[in-house]
């Protein structure tokens, strides 16, 4: 099992020699989730080999004492319903990584496809590459940090929580948010309906410095901007009829 290749991969992924290895080629998503829960009892690190962009890897995990490393790219919904585990994806992630997560930490070393962190209620999602469209859609809590850029409609209908983007964003950033907060360093194609730019206060800066240090993402060179909901869509007002009739 142990070969020169494996040792090189382990070092690259930051795995200790004691890490236990699982082969995703040899189990379906149900079996993999079951094995991860079993192995987490006595192991601090589990490395999953050959993820091969399969869907539904590492669903509904809650062990807080064990890291799960996927040694390659993962498909849809990796880490969905995560409730405490630390998951590291050494590759890219497909749609909905970390969707509905309520706790724990998911780190994607590469980029993510659509809807990363959709509907999440807690925990932290770190994306070292780019986030796709609709990153942080419908999020209700927790934090998302993206070192690169995000696609269109990111933060759409976000209720609460924080989306921090060090690059730029596509069109419709923060459309129809409630009480979520978006911080962005680069340029957004456009702000979405009811999204408004507000000044950062010193507390925001302190909070973000701590956050980014933890996420191992460098502080941006340019200034960060804060995007929030103005609240004009929270209540119907007939004087805003021209807005309402087309959105």
């Amino acid at each position, binding site marked *: 099992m142990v070969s020169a290749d494996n040792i090189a991969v382990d070092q690259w992924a930051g795995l200790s020699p004691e890490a236990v290895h699982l082969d995703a080629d040899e189990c379906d*998503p*149900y079996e993999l*989730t*079951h094995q991860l829960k079993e192995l987490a009892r006595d192991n601090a690190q589990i490395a999953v080999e050959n993820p091969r962009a399969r*869907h*539904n890897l590492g*669903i*509904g995990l*809650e062990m807080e004492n064990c890291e799960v490393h996927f040694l390659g790219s993962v*498909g*849809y*919904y990796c880490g*969905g*319903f*995560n*409730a405490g585990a630390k998951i590291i994806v050494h590759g890219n992630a497909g*749609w*909905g990584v970390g*969707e*509905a*997560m*309520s706790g724990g930490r998911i780190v994607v070393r590469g980029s993510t496809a*659509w*809807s990363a962190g*959709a*509907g999440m*209620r*807690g925990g932290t999602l770190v994306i070292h590459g780019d986030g796709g469209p*609709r990153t942080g*859609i*419908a999020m*209700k*809590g927790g934090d998302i940090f993206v070192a690169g850029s995000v696609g269109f409609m990111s933060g*759409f*209908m976000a*209720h*609460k929580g924080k989306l921090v983007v060090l690059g730029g964003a596509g069109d419709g950033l923060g459309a129809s948010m*409630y*009480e979520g907060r978006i911080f962005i360093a680069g340029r957004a194609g456009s702000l979405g309906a009811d999204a408004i730019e507000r000044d950062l206060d010193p507390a925001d800066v302190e909070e973000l410095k701590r956050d980014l240090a933890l996420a191992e993402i460098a502080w941006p060179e340019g200034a960060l901007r804060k995007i929030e909901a103005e*609240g004009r*869509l*929270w*209540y*119907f*007002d*007939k004087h805003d*009829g021209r807005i*309402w009739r087309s959105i």
Partner: protein
Amino acid sequence: MSMSERSDRSNVGAPTSNPSGSDGMRESPIWDRHTIDEIHSKAELGRYRISGFSLHRQIPRLDDLVFLPAAMTRLPLEGYREHCETKTVLGARHGCAKPLELSVPVYITSMSFGALSWNAKAALGRAASAIGTCTCTGEGGMLREEREESSLLVYQMTPSRYMLDLEHLRQADAIEVAMGQGAKPGTGGVLPGAKVADRVAEMRTLPKNIDQRSAVRHPDFLGADDMEVKLEELRVATNNQVPIFLKMPATRVREDVKIAAKVGADVIVIDGMEGATGASPELLLDHTGIPTVAAVAAAREALEEIGLYGEVNLVISGGVRNGADAAKALALGADAVAIGTAGLIALNCNAPIYLDDYARLGTAPGFCHHCHTGLCPVGIATQEPELVERLEVDAAAERVENFINAMVMEMTLLAKACGKGDVHNLEPEDLRALTIEAAAMARVPLAGTDWIPGSANSW
């Protein structure tokens, strides 16, 4: 100002003019008083009207069908003595550990805490548990009281995903992926600010008292291929312990049902256009979706065409009022029916009590559709503590239990008259239609003929 604080002048008095028009008072069928009132309302409000309850127009219904009980060609069962089975199992298709085993083919449909008060939810749960059937959370997350009272609780996953996480997913006895509802197909939910009270706001992670307009498109899948992966995710998250329902409004039923079966639903719930709501743009109630009677026949045909009828379970909802409607839905192909409004009426909706409060809303018992105001006089569709108190859980639960029992007795009465020892043995051949429209939609012959309009097959 929130939506609900504005007056809705939608309750119009009974006609007073002479229908013959001899007194000179002739109402135009085009510009009738409701149409005129609607234009006046929009001119004042600057928006479409929002309303609760169901539609306000005549459509073909299950009511337009009749049973053909046994006479010379069939032998009836003794209606008052012989047994007729009602047990119903939903969701065994993918071998989950715990398919829903219901004692009757009737359950309480998805209605949210928020749209309904906590005690209405608790009473419905208690009644369903006493009967041996299930309830459904609806969109607003899983209410503690509802979970405690319901022995079998279907947890709804709507596009808004309120309160959806592992902790709550694991408490579900089934998961319902909601793709819309019959009252407002293709449009998300509405919860006027008056009902977004503290606890409702907290469960939905919303600012208090805002007019909530929910998402309609799911945030992390778009098409059928994504959805198949999504359903697998839900199964993995629950370790395939519980079945997965997929609820959709009745629109392109033949196609939609086939796709729902393909993506892996264990149970398909079709909500006809009669399906009611706590609040909806009024025009969607009247002008979108197809009637329940048409939906059930189309759904059955779709499953038969792909060879999955009987394997994928079919639940029908939308305007099911009594045992006759329910038995007809089963005869046309449903495994079970889900009731909403009928259950609320059993709770006390539109009961002739607290008349002054109905009057304050500009309505009266028998006419009230003011769920959207949050000022429900009987404490069901409200979050106002003094109104909520009016619904006493024990007594309300008993009324709903009585009602469902009565409804199931009606179903078995009809089934036994048709010679069936199991309500699920009712079949389309047991039905005839009273109108050409119903015959065409239900695919059963017009009474006294063997004619099914639009069908190459006659019986």
